[in-house]
């Protein structure tokens, strides 16, 4: 039994494999969250109002959906395929960690819980610095470029610990890059919508296109791990790598541009509500 998905030198098979480390990591994220939620509910003097209760329910579902995305990206079969067989699966994992699991976890975290965690870990000042848009964007894209370099992939994917480190770096850097957009702490968020949109476009739309281009247009397979792996249904290593590049380049578009469009609509709504030309209310 193996702890975490890493490259295997056996042909791919659809027979299920257990990765208890993945389950433990998923539980290590979900259980403390649910316990903290329960404690907070027990300590409240009275029942929540309908809107607060709806917010709490929504946050819980968002957070648990984030855990689910983390588990799907890490466990068999995607985790195993991404660790040792297909560059395209590796890229799908990256997208799931950074564009699905990370923002869902951030959106599902209530403000008091975030403040308590940062206070306990004495990370408030560090996070204030790290959530500066330039800093968050640089750290995320630095991690992106580093973890997609052939050296990093071939070294880290070869063993369980390295593979775990790579997945953890993706999740943490994914959380960081979303904090200026939707941090539970208002002071860590960008205030103006144009700033948020530009940040999102630059941090998640522009820089990833560079490694994606390398993958798509490289003359040869870049990663020995996937080039020399037993073939998955005969898929050619070069075609697999090109698919990985396309996933990186196009996979984020719906999420990044969907978020930008949603922000534009919200911005328009808020501008309309503040407009001095708006007719006065009847009362």
């Amino acid at each position, binding site marked *: 039994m193996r702890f975490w998905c890493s490259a295997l030198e056996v042909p791919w098979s659809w027979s299920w494999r257990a990765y208890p480390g993945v389950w433990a990591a998923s539980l290590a994220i979900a259980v403390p969250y649910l316990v903290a939620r329960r404690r907070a509910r027990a300590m409240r003097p009275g029942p929540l109002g309908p809107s607060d209760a709806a917010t709490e329910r929504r946050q819980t579902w968002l957070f648990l959906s984030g855990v689910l995305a983390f588990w799907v990206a890490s466990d068999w079969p995607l985790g195993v395929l991404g660790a040792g067989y297909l560059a395209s699966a590796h890229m799908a994992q990256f997208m799931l960690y950074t564009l699905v699991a990370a923002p869902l976890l951030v959106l599902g975290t209530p403000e008091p819980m975030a403040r308590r965690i940062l206070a306990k870990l004495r990370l408030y000042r560090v996070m204030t610095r790290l959530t500066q848009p330039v800093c968050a964007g640089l750290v995320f894209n630095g991690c992106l470029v580093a973890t997609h370099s052939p050296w990093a992939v071939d070294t880290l994917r070869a063993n369980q610990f390295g593979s775990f480190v790579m997945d953890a770096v993706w999740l943490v850097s994914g959380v960081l890059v979303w904090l200026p957009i939707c941090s539970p702490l208002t002071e860590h968020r960008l205030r103006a919508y144009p700033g948020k949109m530009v940040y999102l476009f630059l941090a998640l739309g522009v820089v990833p296109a560079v490694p994606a281009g390398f993958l798509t247009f490289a003359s040869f*397979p870049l990663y*020995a791990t996937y080039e*020399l792996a*037993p*073939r998955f249904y*005969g898929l*050619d*290593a*070069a075609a697999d790598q090109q698919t990985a590049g396309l996933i990186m380049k196009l996979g984020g578009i719906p999420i990044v541009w969907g978020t930008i469009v949603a922000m534009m609509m919200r911005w328009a709504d808020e501008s309309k509500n503040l407009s001095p030309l708006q007719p006065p209310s009847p009362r």
Partner: protein
Amino acid sequence: MLVVAACGSNDEAESRYDGLAVPESQLKQVPDMVFSDTDGNDFHLAADTQGQVRLVYQMFTNCPDICGVQLAQLASVLNRPGAPANVAVLAVTVDPDRDTPEVLRAYLDQFSDDFVGLIPDSEQQLTDLQNALGALASIKIFETTTTETHQMASDGGDMDTDMDDTDMTAMDHGDVNYDIAHDARVFAYAPNGYGYAQYPHPTRQTQFDHDLPILAGIKPDAPAPAGL
């Protein structure tokens, strides 16, 4: 790696090849042997490939991993624009009992229609080929309660190897399960007939792509040292 040790008397920094360069003292010529091809015709390993780079690879169709990877690597490199045209991939099965001409052809066609599938007519011929290549003998390992090992050839030639360069495969053949361990090197012979380089698993496409034009550029009448 024993292979590296065996082939390493050439200073690797001076080698022209990204693959394992064969020292001058160990150069061998392409075996002058006749096999059956997948159409049932005689195929002369040397005469029918004159003027070409010959990439001789021992494989078998039930091999689930290394054989497929090596053949896919060769197909990818040879399908690239600008790849030398005078290269013949000669895939010799080490499992002639199960690799009938039809089975072998269907398997190779997954990679390239141009790959030549060759079937030894006897175990002795396979042994002779392995000796001529300087390859490890292929070994059938029967999965029975008392492990029975049947060695198809005993002389590994003057080139040694370790388990990294062999391919072990479990398979089911009717009611008999057996593994085959075989030498997974691609033996590369230049158009002048000399085998200057070898490619164990794992070999990157970039290595093949670097070496094949060098091998293909050696003239058929060039003396042996010309390729070193």
